[in-house]
């Protein structure tokens, strides 16, 4: 037995350590940003988690931003590592922000496919496209003095998941969309909002006697990812080909089934405005193809509740409006969004996933050529709205 133990210890000793790295020898990159470079192909911005001891200082929150130009991310990382006293570790990277310009050129393909496994970035990381400078957007994301970036990121995502008002997808889905071609990728389109005040600005405005957001005492950002997002970037394959507004994004999510709940404000019959609280019921999608092309039929069921500010509107009228006019309005909007996606050549509504169920073999599916068929596709949207208040009042009676 002793002999066996000695042999084991010897073998392990010969194998040696598997290159341990001390925790503080790493800099943990929580976000990668990519802009068009001036001298080189890309301008990378990396946001690193600032360690606790440094966070008491007057700084831009819990992040350290590193920036560097490079023809690839490896070159930039190499350059940066030479200038910082730690190794960059990407295992906690949760966001990848890319400028609109690069997204339209299809740069994501290079960035995502070549770097992910090598840098050990998890493919669950989220891609955001931003108007304007990425570095500015990144700064805005963390400029609220929040010590815990991870929690901030988590809060941003949680907000998105809860409401379904923003469309965000991970790198996994991007890879899936491009490997399979059953649908097209779309993700949040960010924009840096000057209205969002930072701690520094808060102090400045307070000293000047004006507070742009009076109810915000400490100057922290209110809200989640929505406040940083202006809409949705539509992709066709690897390239960004169009965009949706923030309002249109809600309809896109309704068609996909990702929408949870939200408020839309509409004009009532008499010209007054009504706020309607919508929450998702179900989505049924049918896509079929025949001699006349591909046809899609989407049945969306939503629950609606309206705030009756005007006492003249009777509950019966409102019920009729909610289940009739509102449903038709939503159908129209859904179709508009579909048209917009189709004109961008982007199957952001993921109708191709339904169509793939119609094929008997992988070869047939691959031969079909979904992208061509999608361009000539017709769609029908049937919305059913259920007045939630009606049931409530009935029950009360």
């Amino acid at each position, binding site marked *: 037995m002793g002999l066996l133990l000695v042999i084991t210890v010897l073998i*392990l000793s010969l194998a040696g350590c*598997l290159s*341990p790295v*001390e925790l*503080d020898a790493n800099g943990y990159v929580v976000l990668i940003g990519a802009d068009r470079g001036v001298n080189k192909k890309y301008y990378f911005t990396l946001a690193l*988690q600032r360690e606790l*001891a440094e966070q008491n200082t007057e700084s831009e929150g819990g992040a350290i931003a590193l920036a560097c130009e490079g023809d690839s991310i490896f070159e930039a990382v190499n350059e940066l590592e030479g200038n910082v006293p730690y190794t960059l570790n990407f295992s906690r990277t949760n966001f990848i922000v890319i400028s609109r310009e690069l997204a339209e050129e299809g740069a994501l393909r290079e960035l995502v496919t070549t770097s992910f496994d090598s840098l050990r970035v998890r493919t669950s990381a989220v891609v955001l496209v931003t108007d304007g400078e990425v570095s500015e957007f990144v700064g805005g994301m963390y400029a609220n003095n929040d010590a815990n970036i991870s929690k901030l990121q988590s809060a941003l995502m949680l907000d998105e998941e809860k409401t379904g008002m923003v469309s965000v997808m991970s790198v996994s889905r991007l890879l899936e969309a491009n490997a399979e071609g059953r649908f097209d990728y779309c993700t949040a389109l960010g924009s840096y909002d000057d209205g969002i005040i930072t701690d520094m600005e808060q102090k400045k405005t307070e000293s000047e006697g004006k507070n742009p957001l009076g109810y915000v005492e400490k100057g922290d950002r209110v809200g989640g990812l929505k406040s940083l997002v202006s809409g949705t970037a539509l992709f066709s394959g690897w390239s960004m080909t169009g965009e949706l507004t923030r309002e249109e994004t809600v309809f896109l999510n309704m068609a996909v089934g990702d929408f949870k709940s939200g408020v839309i404000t509409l004009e009532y019959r008499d010209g007054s405005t009504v706020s309607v609280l919508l929450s998702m019921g179900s989505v049924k999608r049918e896509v079929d193809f025949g001699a006349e092309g591909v046809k899609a039929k989407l049945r969306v069921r939503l629950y609606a509740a309206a705030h009756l500010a005007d006492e003249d509107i009777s509950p019966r009228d409102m019920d009729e409006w909610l289940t009739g006019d509102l449903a038709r309005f939503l159908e129209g909007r859904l179709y508009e969004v579909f048209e917009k996606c189709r004109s961008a050549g982007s199957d952001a509504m993921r109708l191709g996933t339904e169509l793939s169920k119609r094929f008997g073999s992988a070869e047939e599916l691959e031969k079909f050529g979904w992208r061509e068929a999608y361009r000539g596709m017709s769609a029908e949207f049937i919305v059913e709205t259920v007045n939630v208040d009606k049931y409530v009042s009935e029950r009360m009676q």
Partner: protein
Amino acid sequence: MPQKRNNRSLFAFDEGDERFELLETERGAPEKQTGWNDSHKKSRKAGAIPRSVNAAEKLLRETFSPEINPDLIIRRFRTGGGTEALIAYMNGMADDAKINEFILKPLMLCNDKKPDAESLLMGVIEISETKRETSMEKAALDVMDGVTALFIEGEKECILLETRGFEKRSIGPAENETTVIGPKESFTESFRTNVTLIRRGVHTKDLIVEPRPSGGRNNTRLALVYRKGFTNPELLDEVKRRLDGIAVSDMPGSGVLEQLIEDCGWSPVPQILQTERPDRACSHLMQGRVCIVVEGSPFVLLMPVTLFSLMNSPEDVYLRKPLGTAIRLIRYAGALISVMLPGYFLALALYHQGVMSTEVLSTVIASRKMVFEPMGAEMIILLMIFQLIREAGLRVPGSIGQAIGIIGGLIMGQAAVAAHLASSVVLIVVAASGLGNFCIPDYSLQISAAYMRLAVVISAWMGGLLGMVAVTLTALCHLASLKSFGVPFLAPFAPKTYRKRTLVLRGNIGMHERADDYANTADDAEIWEEA
């Protein structure tokens, strides 16, 4: 025998059953023994009791050298009828008052002209426990043990009278296996007291206290305690065979005996349970296990044991089911934390940082800002210091021991963090692991868990989670191959056996109707017969 087992046994697992010392392949029952030792057998003829008192005195003087060994008291006297007689006993071991009042006085007043052993025992001597002995060797051994030997002129046998009266420690509360609820008694160094404590707990007719030779030249008294007809006879024979195989110069107590009869001597894990609690011993006896009581040792040995029986505490059954279950779960969690937590933390910190959340990462980095040694070394140093404090606390008297714990744990820890010798996070991990270690009820298992923890830490430092896998799998493979008197150490889980009792959770007391299946008691035999 285990200690003589050939090293090749490891490399011969496919050889025939005869290579293994098994319960199933035993070579018949072991030799029958009748007393504490068998040394008298070799010289029985030479040591026969002489008929003459003078010759007996001469033999005693030759044996004990009273001229230089004043402990032996030889008292010659005449009975009331004028017959020569002699008593011999050890000063301090026997009760003088008892000898004077109930042996010497009645004998001196006895007017029988020609008294023999029979008549004296029947009508004169006022001692309850007596024995007639024809072997001088055995008589001498009993005299050394506090018995008084009475030699009568013309008698070919002597009378051994129970007069033991040496000083002994009184029964006190258990020091190592303390419980809040439950009996407060513990075993003492007195053999007789220990047997009495067991008998008080097991009121069954089948309880046997069988004296066996210990194998030590110091003739330590030792007895097997078991339930005849209930305990697996093959297990009993195996225990006896292992006891018979012992030949050592000195048998100081149960700790040494344990090493001499256990299955795997080099294993860090105990394969025999040492307990100081009579209630625990009784409970195990009722489960069909064998107990060995050793003179001079406040611990008794119980066998066979499994990992799960070592992890049980007597308190589990004294508490109600939900509470007992909760405590047991905490204990297992504590044991797991004790062994795995430092290594796991180190593996994540050095190799798999992505698993840790950013909050933890930044907290640990901040706490290690000025610490000079690598985290692996820091962890090992802190673990060693923890062991030092623990050892120091154990070896010094009670109140000072407590002070050492406080100084070591609180003041040194705080000072080490302040002086940047250790980081607060690693200190917390080590402290949690140390606390978890104390949850393990068995002392030997505690120590093995502490050293296993060190192995896990080193492997995690070397190879991260992969290193941990290598070490834990090797250790578990060892545990899986380990046996305690033929019973697999991981039973009743691996191998899975029939059991009504829950393993980790404490089930209903009603489930305790049958003994554990692996004990192969008479109950099992009945069940098999019925089947």
